């Protein structure tokens, strides 16, 4: 794939028009007045029939899974082995589906990477975690309404004492209690935390053994459960479109029906890594939206702003900035295209490849945003010109979904192990 197809472009134009007419007028309230982004996101979902598509996809997946379970029962094999995912076949539809996920992310990121994050964590991360490992009953109970954005989801792994070392230093625990469990611990930096209806809570099973050897389990919690407290939104450098909060669990009693997969024997660590891969690949689309918007604003400004009696675009130092932005834009766009192409071939990136992609895109986007502020000079520092918001928002790309440093170590480890 070397350029967007006509269908891609139609989708882009349509989403772009929605952003102009529906998102742009609400950006000030969302970015500066603490208004949550969910109303405008729900309108997006309804307008483009995304909820209907999710319902269809959900019904298809559940039907397949039921057939798989029935087949396993007939053959007397364990359904667990059957659940191993068969290699996907190449299909243009899968590529199109990936493009349809990427294009709204790119277009929304021009205005607010924050609302993209809120959307992605709810419809993507949280719903996917339940869809990947939940039982059919759990999927029907929680995942479908997340996929249609009727409910808001949060995926809780980070803790005050455990960020990059997510599993090693994890203190949240589950203790067996009769048929169920008692959960305690605290989580922080949780996207959608303040407003989430459904929370996937990741913790360790305390069987009196050494913390290092404990199993990692995921539970699904509902807003308002006794013992669960969701904090108010935290103040942040940027990404104000995405409400971030803390969660406190004080002996929250749950039944086994809330244990994801309803079994303690599950590869939670491996599955969580799959989630990381998905999270990292989405950063490329966000970076592309940011860079395209910065470049567009920069070109306009370079052609209109005059200093020393000429347009600043005539100065070579400004030209250098524009040229570097173009290089970044081309590279990031190619990485987005690569993901669409891979999806169409039934492949997805390895964790190391997704890490390399995320590392580059995050750094390039940050550099472009930084240069854009510089190109705008004093105006770039003023909220009126929007680029200051994009600059503040881009910074998180180098931190969330694994810091640059974690990406580097994962790339290097993969090279040294297989190279």
């Amino acid at each position, binding site marked *: 794939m070397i350029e967007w197809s*006509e269908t891609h472009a*139609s989708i882009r134009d*349509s989403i772009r*028009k929605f952003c102009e007419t529906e998102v742009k007028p609400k950006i000030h309230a969302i970015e500066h007045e603490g208004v949550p982004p969910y109303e405008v996101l729900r309108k997006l979902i309804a*307008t483009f029939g995304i909820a209907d598509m999710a319902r269809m996809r959900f019904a298809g997946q559940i039907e397949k899974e039921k057939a798989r379970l029935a087949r396993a029962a007939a053959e007397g094999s364990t359904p667990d082995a059957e659940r191993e995912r068969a290699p996907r076949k190449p299909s243009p539809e899968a590529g199109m589906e990936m493009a*349809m996920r990427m294009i709204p992310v790119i277009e929304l990121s021009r205005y607010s990477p924050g609302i993209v994050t809120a959307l992605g964590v709810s419809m993507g991360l949280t719903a996917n975690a339940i869809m990947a490992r939940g039982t059919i009953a759990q999927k029907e109970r929680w995942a479908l309404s997340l996929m249609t954005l009727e409910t808001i989801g949060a995926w809780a792994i980070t803790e005050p004492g455990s960020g990059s070392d997510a599993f090693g230093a994890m203190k949240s625990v589950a203790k067996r209690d009769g048929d169920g469990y008692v959960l305690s611990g605290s989580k922080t930096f949780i996207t959608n935390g303040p407003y989430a209806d459904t929370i996937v809570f990741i913790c360790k099973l305390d069987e009196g053994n050494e913390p290092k050897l404990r199993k990692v389990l995921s539970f699904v919690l509902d807003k308002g459960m006794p013992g669960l407290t969701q904090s108010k939104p935290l103040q942040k450098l940027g990404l104000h479109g995405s409400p971030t909060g803390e969660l406190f669990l004080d002996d929250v009693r749950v039944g086994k029906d809330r244990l994801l997969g309803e079994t303690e024997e599950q590869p939670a660590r491996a599955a969580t890594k799959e989630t990381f891969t998905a999270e990292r690949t989405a950063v490329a689309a966000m970076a592309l939206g940011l860079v395209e918007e910065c470049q567009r604003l920069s070109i306009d400004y370079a052609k209109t702003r005059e200093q020393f009696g000429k347009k600043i675009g005539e100065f070579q130092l400004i030209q250098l900035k524009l040229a570097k932005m173009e290089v970044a834009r081309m590279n990031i766009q190619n990485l987005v295209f690569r993901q669409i192409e891979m999806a169409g071939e039934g492949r997805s990136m390895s964790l190391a490849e997704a890490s390399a992609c995320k590392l580059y895109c995050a750094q390039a986007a940050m550099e472009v945003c930084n240069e854009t502020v510089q190109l705008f000079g004093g105006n770039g520092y003023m909220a009126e010109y929007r680029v200051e918001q994009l600059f503040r928002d881009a910074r998180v790309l180098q931190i969330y979904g694994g810091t640059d440093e974690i990406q580097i170590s994962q790339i290097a480890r993969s090279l040294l192990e297989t190279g």
Partner: protein
Amino acid sequence: MKILVPLKRVSDPDNANKVKVTGGKLDASGLEWKPNPFDEYAVEAALRLTENGTNTKARVGEVVVVTFGPKEAETTLRAALATGADKAIRIDALDDALDGDVVARALKALVDKEKPDLVLLGKQAVDGDSNQVGQLLAEYLGWPQATFAASIKSNADKALIVSREVDGGALNLKLTLPAVVSVDLRIVAPKSVTSIHTPATHTYPDGVRFAALMAIMAAKKKPMTEVKLADLVTDAATKIKYTGFELPPSRKAGIKVKTVAELVEKLKNEAKAL
């Protein structure tokens, strides 16, 4: 009801400053194209007339969109198909070789073939602002016409009551179908289009509808045919001859005045506005 909607793509009106004139001719290179907004309103009105607003997926009529343009203009047609139009026709022609009269004559020939009950179109295209095609077409067809429609009431799909805003009130015309109607911007207000197919209690969102993502993809499979201009008109000569184009002179820089007295003095003696 079958409705024919002529639809024109125009250079993005928000980027009018990118229009260039080279050697006395308009230079369209590098321009971004958008559907003429008034034509988009016509498509929206046509869809509302041919559906039940509470279940827009079930069509109760047919909307055929038609444009004059090169192959690339099919993008504009496909966008209309994505929002719900049923069929598209592209008449292969270049803007330079057209005027309102040729377009109206070609559309007449197309109407004779397609036999719609109604031709619904924007009151004018925002590039040339000619505002001629609807009126000429009605004359060539010998059909009744109503222009600048702000609301349309379909009377059992046999007749229309078309309302136009005029100074001090509204002008209501009753037309027996078939007819030609051109629309103004208020036609996309929530209650502007009414028919027997949609319950009177239904309220549309203000403005033109967005296409669902699935509909954008499905639009590729809807029928799109190409017709040669020569198959519709034997005489393609235009009545309007363009003798030249030039950009409007750029505005001179303004001046600052210190006092109201000075302002009045300048308005009176220099600008001669008082």
